[in-house]
């Protein structure tokens, strides 16, 4: 039963991957990769219950946090346009 939901999540990941490959702007790709990571968390949670090994939930928990940090880091880099972000890295920084 849960395998069906896992397959549906895999289909979702495939569709999102298409958007990540097509996406016209870099922000489309980041959005798709972020969603891919969220779906990975859900897939790992489903996997924990499919196999009956609830320890896999720890991996899902860690993945949720790592995914968030990665997306924020990449967004900070691209916020003011790629390489120019490196030039202003030592200057004044908002927030």
């Amino acid at each position, binding site marked *: 039963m849960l395998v*069906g939901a896992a397959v549906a999540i895999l289909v979702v990941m495939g569709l999102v991957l298409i958007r990540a490959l097509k996406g016209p702007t*870099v922000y489309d790709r980041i959005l798709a990769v972020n969603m891919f990571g969220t779906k990975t968390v859900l897939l790992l949670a489903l996997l924990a219950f499919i196999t009956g090994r609830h320890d896999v939930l720890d991996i899902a928990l860690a993945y949720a946090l790592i995914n968030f940090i990665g997306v924020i880091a990449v967004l900070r880099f691209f916020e003011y346009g790629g390489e120019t972000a490196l030039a202003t890295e030592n200057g004044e920084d908002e927030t």
Partner: protein
Amino acid sequence: MSIVEIVAYTLVFLGAFFCLVGAIGVLRFPDVYSRMHSAGITDTIGALLVLLGLAFLAGWTLALVKLAFILVFLWMTSPTATHALAKAARHGGVEPKLADDVAMDDFKETPSSNR
């Protein structure tokens, strides 16, 4: 099959359905900002229903606590990531697609454009 399992599987499949709808939206919507809206569906109600269904399967165990933690982390991080993405896209010069009778000039004077 017990009543708890029926409820659990129904919730998980509903969550998977919402994830599918969101993914189709991400694939088909015209620009970044509308795609963000569609991705938000999967991050909130999709994750909620899938994890809630699994919580019904877990019962009162440690797995329930872990599922609750995953849900709380997802619900705290995904709006933050979406906000940062919208801000980055706006500063990066991506203009939202608007209806024909709405001019983009109406949004030029927002305080966020002071850089």
